[in-house]
């Protein structure tokens, strides 16, 4: 089996499913690139290159460049989904969701319920998340808690290329609106990825590393960081289990609770400001349903309650970094 990057894995999934299902279309800003220009159309393939080659294979009726109009992009996807297509809309940076959030949470996500179960809205919104690109306050956010809140929406956060492909295929074969959050910092990371189609089900966490002393639950791009810290801790005899929920909605509570039952200790690693975060969400679930397993306080390693700063030294400190993760684990281990 060949190694593939996270970027290629997503491309693979889309290409394969588009071949299989003619109802799948892709739309967004520069998903092809070059429309109306003097040179080549379709060379861009979305600004991070994730859609490379799709325009060439599927042409302008299926790989549709749009004006800079996120509400119309997401709304058009919702309307197309409601009437028989399976659109994959792109919001280039998730930070832009503020100009189109209505179409996500009040429209696409609510149709089925508001219409008494008579509607299906099979659509995917792809968006890039995360800091670390020195892109400043308006191009570096993650915003997954915002989506996880929304009844009717599913939220996918792949942490590696294998899951990225399988989760995308699962999304494309499901019938609900999905937001699929791609970690910019993971695009070039590689693992073994089968060429053929496979599905990674939603709501099934992956135990990325087994351990017995403490559970780390990390989301998307924080998973590799949690794993790295776990390796460091292992040298000191601390055996950390790392759980990657893969989807935050639905969330696999069982796997998390089973892990905490075993370890009795929990640290959350979540790249977002702390308030009403996924870290707090999972902490609350465990403080209710897993209370009796807990031997120590639940600690969270998040970003501070600040916008994302531009200067690299500040941004590196802003993100949950190995030093801060390790410190949280040690504090929890010390408690009794």
């Amino acid at each position, binding site marked *: 089996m060949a190694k593939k990057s996270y970027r290629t894995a997503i491309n693979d999934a889309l290409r394969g499913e588009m071949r299989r299902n003619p109802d799948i*279309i892709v739309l967004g800003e520069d998903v092809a690139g070059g429309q109306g220009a003097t040179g080549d159309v379709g060379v861009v393939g979305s600004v991070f290159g994730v859609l490379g080659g799709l325009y060439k294979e599927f042409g302008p009726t299926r790989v549709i460049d749009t004006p800079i109009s996120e509400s119309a992009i997401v709304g058009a996807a919702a309307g197309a989904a409601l009437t028989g297509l399976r659109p994959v809309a792109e919001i280039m940076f998730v930070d832009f969701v503020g100009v189109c959030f209505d*179409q996500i949470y*009040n429209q696409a996500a*609510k149709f089925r319920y*508001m219409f*008494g179960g008579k509607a299906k809205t099979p659509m995917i919104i792809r968006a890039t998340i995360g800091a670390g690109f020195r892109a400043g306050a308006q191009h570096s956010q993650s915003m997954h808690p915002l989506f996880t809140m929304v009844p009717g929406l599913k939220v996918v956060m792949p942490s590696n290329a294998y899951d990225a492909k399988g989760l995308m295929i699962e999304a494309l074969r499901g019938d609900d609106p999905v937001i699929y959050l791609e970690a910019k910092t993971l695009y070039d990371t590689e693992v073994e990825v089968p060429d053929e189609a496979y599905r990674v089900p939603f709501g099934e966490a992956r135990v990325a590393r087994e351990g017995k002393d403490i559970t780390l639950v990390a989301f998307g791009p924080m998973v590799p960081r949690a794993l790295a810290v776990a390796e460091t801790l292992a040298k000191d005899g601390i055996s950390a289990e790392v759980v990657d929920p893969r989807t935050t909605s639905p969330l696999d509570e069982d796997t998390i609770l089973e892990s905490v039952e075993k370890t009795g200790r929990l640290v959350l690693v979540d790249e977002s400001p702390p308030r009403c975060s996924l870290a707090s969400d999972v902490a609350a679930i465990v403080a209710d349903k897993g209370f009796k397993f807990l031997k120590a306080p639940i600690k969270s390693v998040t970003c501070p309650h600040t916008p994302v700063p531009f200067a690299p030294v500040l941004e590196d400190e802003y993100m949950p970094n190995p030093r801060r993760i390790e410190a949280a684990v040690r504090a929890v281990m010390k408690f009794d």
Partner: protein
Amino acid sequence: MQLSRDELKRAYKRMFTIRAFEERVEKEFAAGNIPGFAHVYLGQEASGVGVCHDLTDEDLIGSTHRGHGHCIAKGCDVKGMMLEIMGKAGGLCGGKGGSMHIADLSKGMLGANAIVGGAPPIAVGAALTQKYKKTGRVSVAFSGDGASNQGTVFEAMNMAVVLKVPAIFVFENNGYGEHTAASYSVGGGSIADRARSFGMPAEVVDGVDFFAVHEAMGRALEHCRAGTGPYALEIRCYRFLGHFVGDPQAYRTADELKDARSHDPLPLFRKKVTEAKLLEASELDAIEKEILAEVEDAAQTAIAAPPPDIKSLEKDVYVRY
């Protein structure tokens, strides 16, 4: 194009159904039988019915908070609507939607929308499906004059032009968005000009006259079916009542309210078809009688109907979760 007698009857039937339905809604609202808000379509009947007259169940419409008229014009079942608006189990949306979110996909009615400007982007998407699947069908986005100031509506118009989709933007300019006049809120004063600035053809239409609306819509359909992209209609009409049932409307003078009522699409239609000897007054009377009975039955049934099962609360959020 000359309409057949049957078609004329259907048009009057739908206009009168809206009239009777909305007057009943007014009454049942006052009686406490309708929870929440009710925005009625009284005075605008010729607009919705003229726009939808030549549409089939496969053509699509996206509607507004003032959506009952659009539903009826698109052929939704009146009893199912009344049940829905009263929050009852048998309603078109099982009582979960209500007046502002009523929908019937089987009739191509993609939902009322309680977010001003919510529907046009969705209607563009529905139009994209028609283009992609080469169905020859169109998608209509209804908006009000107030909605014509919402960013999403502009985006939808531009997107429709760029993607060359068969979308028809129908702006029902009834002079008011809530309690603010269009003369104040619509900079430049012409919604049609806004649409034109995106490069699509647009017409200003007399919304009191069913025939004017129907003919303009014919041109819009022709344009869309030729595959050349969207079309816009600014339909000038009158809001007989307040923004919602119960709005005291101190911002409108008695004279203006009286004047509005003088632009009534129903007597105008009657006059036109009877004077042209296309239909007899007695035929129209018969339609009215039939409809009044239908609405009476719908209201009685809905009042007596049971509420949804509490167990439905957590159902139908997802297809699968």
